[in-house]
């Protein structure tokens, strides 16, 4: 995100940069310090990625693509097939986004335009408070309150709706990809609300008033004027939320059931990349440790590509039509 802004401001910033470069010699130590810091963190990232790859290498060279395509994950002895973990990671994140994006956008719009000024700040700080809750607390809440509610109420109800058919078939144990996705959606909600509120708040008043004066309803203005002009920032919000959902460990580990399998319904228990690393690293040695590092690598690739994808989309969205 940050680098993106840098490149965008390069043209206007180049003069400033030139002036800084030509500045008095007394600034030299300061410049060295800044350059040094930048280089240092660049080096840290390189070393970090290298060490993960290095640790994962034995597993990669032994199992090759089987690491990604294998459907059986057996800690200790192998085989180490991460396909179930990958599908569960993507599925829980998608479930989280399905709930969190519409609710988050609606809350952001409500906070800006519908809720009376008096309670607006209280409401938004309450939502932001959700972001400050440690993830283990969400995990405990999921384990103690949502698991019994799922088994007693929600799962029988959903199974009744589809007559026990897909996607609500299978064991009704509470622990499931659906529950993990639901907990994740609550965890990423504040991120989506806070960022999309900020980007919507800078949509020019003229546009909104123009839309209203042309006779559009409030709903039409939201959908046709506000959301399209804020789409760049909203995509960024979704990407950040997805990133958090993909990488969440402990809350997911507590409610997903830690049973690595390719889900055949939303009620299936599972295990994500991050939750498997969190559950098994303490005991891992030898081949398991290496396979877990390979999982970490996959997780890094996925989150990096979500980020990169979001950047491409935001860049495209920002181009004038």
């Amino acid at each position, binding site marked *: 995100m940050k680098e993106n802004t840098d490149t965008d401001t390069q043209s206007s910033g180049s003069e400033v940069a030139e002036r800084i470069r030509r500045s008095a010699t007394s600034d030299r130590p300061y410049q060295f310090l800044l350059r040094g810091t930048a280089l240092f963190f660049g080096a840290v990232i390189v070393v970090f990625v290298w060490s993960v790859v290095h640790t994962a290498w034995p597993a990669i060279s032994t199992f090759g693509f089987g690491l990604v395509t294998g459907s059986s994950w057996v800690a200790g002895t192998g085989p180490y097939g991460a396909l179930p973990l990958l599908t569960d990671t993507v599925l829980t994140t998608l479930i989280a986004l399905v709930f969190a994006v519409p609710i988050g956008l609606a809350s952001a719009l409500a906070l800006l335009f519908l809720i009376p000024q008096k309670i607006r700040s209280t409401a938004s700080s309450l939502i932001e408070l959700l972001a400050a809750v440690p993830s283990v607390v969400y995990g405990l809440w999921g384990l103690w309150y949502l698991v019994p509610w799922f*088994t007693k109420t929600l799962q029988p109800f959903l199974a009744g709706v589809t007559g026990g058919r897909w996607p609500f078939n299978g064991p009704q144990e*509470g622990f499931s990809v659906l529950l993990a996705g639901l907990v994740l959606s609550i965890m990423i909600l504040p991120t989506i609300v806070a960022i999309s509120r900020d980007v919507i708040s800078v949509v020019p008043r003229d546009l909104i008033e123009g839309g209203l004066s042309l006779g559009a309803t409030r709903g039409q203005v939201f959908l046709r004027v506000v959301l399209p002009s804020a789409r760049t920032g909203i995509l960024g919000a979704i990407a950040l939320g997805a990133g958090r959902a993909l990488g969440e460990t402990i809350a997911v580990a507590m409610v997903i059931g830690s049973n690595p399998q390719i889900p055949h319904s939303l009620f299936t228990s599972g295990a994500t990349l991050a939750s498997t690393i969190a559950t098994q690293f303490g005991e891992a040695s030898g081949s398991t440790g290496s396979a877990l590092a390979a999982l970490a690598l996959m997780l890094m690739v996925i989150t990096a590509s979500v980020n990169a994808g979001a950047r491409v989309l935001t860049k495209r969205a920002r181009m004038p039509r």
Partner: protein
Amino acid sequence: MKKTLRGKLFVAVATMGLLSTLAVTTAGAAPSLNGDLTFAASDSANAINPAMGGSSFDEPFFNAAIPEFMSDAAKVSGSANAPQGMSLYSPTGSSAGKKGVVAGTYAVGASDVPMGTVVNGTSLDASILTNTNAATTLNSYVQVPVVLGGVGLMYNLPSLKKKFGKDTVILNSAALAAIYDGSITKWNNSAICKLNPKIVTVKKNKKGKVISSKCALPNIPVVPVYRADGSGTTFIFMDYLNQTQGANFKTSSGAEVYPNTTFNQGEVPSNALGAQKNAGVAGDIEQTVGAVGYVEYSYILLQHTLPAALIVNAAHQAQVLNQTSVAADAAAFASKPPSESGAGVVSNYSIVNGTNKGDYPIAGYSWAIVRQDWNNLGTVGGATANLNSEKLVAKFLDWAVQNGATGGQNVAKEQGYVPLPSYVQAVAEQQVGLMTFNSQSLGLS
């Protein structure tokens, strides 16, 4: 450096009345320890804080024993000399305990399986014991059995509690194997019903004659809960299933669950749930009606309200899990106490499926693993490795295995473990007695 566990075993055997001349010769050399808690000012014990961690099976024991050790030592030696502020034990898991002691981050690493145990020709610890230096060589360590505990099958069937409160569900190894490989999916499966003749709804006619009796186990799914992390408790449970249900734990369905290369979760049925540590398994069972899972006895006795199933033992009795029945199981193996081969591999550690009457068949010892000689080690468990720090750890372990009035085994008993049988206690004392500093005896008593 050469350990002489075998020699001391002879001592143990000698005390049991089976005399041999060799035993008599070794008996003079081996120290007889009694958990002495005397610390002098020169021991600087109060300034040492060695870290310990590992098996979560042992957590209730160590975390009750460490404060007790400090307070008992303070009574004997005065609080100025006695150890103070020792950290509590970290229940990071058996493999983490072994890794920690090899890496030197734990002074004592605890494991439910002795380090270097070979299963089906493969050492469980081949990846950490690489024999490249002293730290990665099994012979550099002493392994002290510290607690004896049972593994309970905790289950959550609230509907039975009302009607059959006093009748606990009975399971046997075949039913457990079938539950854990997914071939039994409902509680009222005929195999489980057959084992539970008391849990029935009986219909009588007017004359009081029984006209029908129907299995009253609920028609709800069985949810097996297992340890998703590597676990010594899993090892003990799997050891039991391996020994009773065949080396590969193969069942009639042909499904191979938890292959005999233990310490992993194997291929588990899709309805199973995984959880972390003993506490996590117990927590998952509490949240899930129909769940059953294996946890250390103290987690059932002290921390949870759910019952443990009776297990049918080798003498065909449905046996309840308690301290007496676990002691009976250990006693069945009195004739072959844990012993050690030349390379430091401990054999006869397994005590599952004993043949005694009153025997609860799923039990095991847990082992404290510690470097035999701390000279030139730098730091061990965060403490400077010197004579004083090694002595503190040795004294702690010595005290921990004692049965006497103030010994650590009393703490174990309060926490739901079984005091070590005398012949195993002898092994433990002998192992602690092998600890040296710069090849000099620590002078324990």
